[in-house]
């Protein structure tokens, strides 16, 4: 069957292989942000990655958080933006702010 959401589909295939998978979703944006609300990125334990939550500015940081979340199962809301440079070493060069929700898929319930 044809799939209309490659990212979630791939995530479901990884889960069928019993891999740990995390899903990152853009939940809010302020100002200029490269990817709209709802944009997603799936990451598995082998660090296979599909999709994106920015133009490449924050993916590295999201992926390292995702690795931790795959282990603990506890979801996290990550905030990025120029004004948050104290909390996070990465920011959006475009001057926008975004929140990214990262959760583990499966076996945490």
């Amino acid at each position: 069957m044809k799939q209309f959401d490659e990212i979630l589909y791939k995530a479901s295939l990884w889960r069928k292989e019993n891999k740990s998978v995390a899903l990152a979703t853009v939940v809010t944006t302020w100002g200029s942000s490269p990817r709209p609300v709802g944009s997603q990125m799936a990451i598995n334990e082998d660090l296979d990655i599909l999709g994106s939550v920015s133009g490449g500015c924050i993916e590295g940081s999201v992926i390292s958080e995702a690795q931790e979340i795959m282990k603990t199962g506890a979801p996290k809301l990550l905030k990025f933006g120029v004004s948050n440079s104290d909390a996070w070493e990465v920011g959006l060069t475009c001057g926008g702010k975004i929140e990214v929700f990262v959760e583990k898929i499966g076996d945490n319930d």
Partner: protein
Amino acid sequence: MKDNTLNLVLSAKNNRNTIILATELDSGQQIIINNNQVDNSNKEILLAAQSIINQGKSDVVNIDSKRWFINISLPPLRLVTVGAVHIAQPLAEIATISGYEVTIIDPRAAFANNKRFPNINILNEWPEEALINFNIDNRTAVVTLTHDPKLDDSALHAALKSDAFYIGSLGSKITHNARIARLKIASFSDNEIKRIHGPVGLPIGARSPQEIAISIMSQIIFTRNNFENSGTV
């Protein structure tokens, strides 16, 4: 996210159903919201999220000092192309990677087949027959590519009577003027006829079938984004 939740979201998307997933951003608790099934577990969220659900735009809402992300997955956008001509090949590919579900209508099986169009829905029927059961909604774009009034015109009639957010018709200015004259005879008003983008595509000086496909897809994307920004999704 539970595996089961992921599978429900995926199957809704593949069946062209709208699905709404509410996530509490602190605990990660998730509820699937169905507009038709209101119960105590989702009543409050449904009420708080009603306006963004109506707009079809995912957003965060506050309920009892908790933040919930309401993720609304609308059915995939669709492109219906009449005419399995050369331009339809790159257009089907570009539309697919742009997230559109593509259907090609052409009674000529020699042109319209899965060898020429791998993984694309093909209807080997006349457009008026094929479009009867095809619910052309406001998430559907219709493009005619044959130049042949026998095929194009009946598709345009169906498109003009529908909510299609985009209607495009390939052909030179001369071809398009002749088309307009035929549509007027068929009692379509000037305002209705103005919905048709013809000559089709954004003016990027396109020549090859691939370039023309890019110009058509650009115009579809442009029209879609303007439509969504106007808040009438």
